């Protein structure tokens, strides 16, 4: 089998073929072997993309609103066996601290757009902006919010992030289905796998406070917001890691800003629900 034969037969042979001539040629031809290895690597990485994206929380909100307007979702009283939730007298709840935190998130994201030659420094802009936040009214019954809205955890160096998150678990547990992907044979892959396990940081203090407030006010939405936060924080960390390796990539910086904006919208949605 010649290289030309291999190229013509590749569409039929590449996906797990055990054709003896094909395998024999790969053993003797480094160019063809490299091509096949590259293509298998692309295929293997592509599989990881199947569930790699998290839709914004507003998608479910819009779906449920539409289903309700069409009468497909019915009132709880008409559905047999549904529990009845009896809210206690509403206590005064104040989410005043959410707005400046959301502003700090945007500022941190905008700071990332500034090209720098060194690794990202702590966003002083966000801290200064948050420092101008109005202090709480002492008569309010609200849970005390943050005195200064620090940048979210996603802006910290990925090297300090602890391994957590469904994304990291998925990547760590994904079996190597092709020798080209075996971490044993590719140290850089093993390194990437380790980095992947570190890119889903735990929720920051602000995120935790946010989730606590969501739980108290709209308990049914906590799981949704928690998973949304996990996904967006993971995306922030992954993008920051990428920017550290490719500081001149403006597209990546723009993407990071967009992800920060997504996080801000998440906070804003909660604010809209609460107020």
């Amino acid at each position: 089998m010649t290289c030309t034969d291999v190229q013509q037969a590749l569409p039929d042979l590449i996906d797990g073929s055990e054709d003896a001539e094909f395998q024999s040629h790969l053993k003797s031809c480094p160019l063809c072997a490299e091509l096949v290895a590259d293509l298998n690597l692309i295929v293997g990485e592509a599989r990881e993309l199947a569930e790699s994206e998290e839709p914004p929380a507003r998608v479910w909100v819009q779906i449920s609103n539409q289903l309700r307007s069409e009468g497909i979702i019915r009132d709880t009283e008409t559905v047999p066996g549904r529990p009845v939730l009896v809210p206690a007298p509403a206590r005064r709840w104040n989410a005043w601290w959410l707005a400046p935190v959301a502003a700090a998130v945007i500022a941190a994201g905008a700071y990332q757009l500034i090209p720098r030659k060194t690794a990202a420094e702590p966003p002083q802009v966000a801290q200064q902006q948050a420092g101008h936040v109005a202090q709480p009214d002492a008569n309010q019954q609200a849970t005390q919010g943050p005195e200064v809205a620090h940048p979210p955890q996603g802006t910290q160096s990925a090297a300090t992030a602890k391994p957590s998150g469904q994304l990291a678990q998925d990547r760590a547990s994904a079996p190597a289905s092709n020798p080209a992907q075996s971490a044993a044979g590719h140290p850089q892959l093993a390194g990437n796998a380790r980095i992947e396990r570190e890119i889903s940081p735990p929720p920051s203090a602000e995120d935790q406070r946010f989730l606590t407030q969501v739980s108290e006010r709209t308990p049914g939405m906590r799981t949704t917001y928690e998973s949304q936060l996990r996904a967006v924080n993971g995306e922030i960390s992954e993008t920051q890691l990428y920017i550290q390796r490719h500081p001149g990539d403006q597209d990546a910086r723009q993407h990071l800003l967009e992800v920060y904006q997504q996080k801000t919208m998440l906070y804003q949605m909660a604010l809209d629900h609460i107020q």
Partner: protein
Amino acid sequence: MPHLNRVAAGKGDLTDPKQRISEAEAIERAKQGDEAAFEILYQLHKRRVYSLCLRMVSNPSQAEDLAQEAFLQLFRKIGTFRGESAFSTWLHRMTVNVVLMQLRKKGLPSVSLEETLESDDEAPRKEFGADDVKLSGAIERMQLKRAIDKLPPGYKTVFVLHDVEGFEHNEIAQIVGCSIGNSKSQLHKARLKLRDYLKSMRAEKAKTG
């Protein structure tokens, strides 16, 4: 939750993570209009649906609309689901149809794969392994996503359906209306093109640092 008095009745609150129910039970409750059941089904499948839409159209806003439409179509028809096939398969196919219909409305050539066939001059380079830039070892996910976004619509459709979503060539042929041979050929060309894109990106990064 401390400030809510919950009167438990019937089968309990589906949004309580401690209440474990199967997808089949969620489907049955959704048929009765139970919002929590709909949400459970949405949470189970949202990433798969949205990822497919985003890979196909490369536009987050458009992908949101398509994902929303796919779920709406599914939930409107949930009363007709009899369990002959897996629910995820049903949803998967519906999502692909929603996306392809959108692409057809826009007049993009992904509808007919024959339109994406390139001349030999335009086909991916037939020489391989000649570059100094090596690809083997690792591919950054973001670079792969961007490379997929750059693919011509026909290549992208087959690549996403086969390599990302796991459809077989006979299924792709049925979905998009082409031959199995054509599907295999387009897939191979898509992979070669992606390899070229990824090598170019790597070479560019090496230059700029």
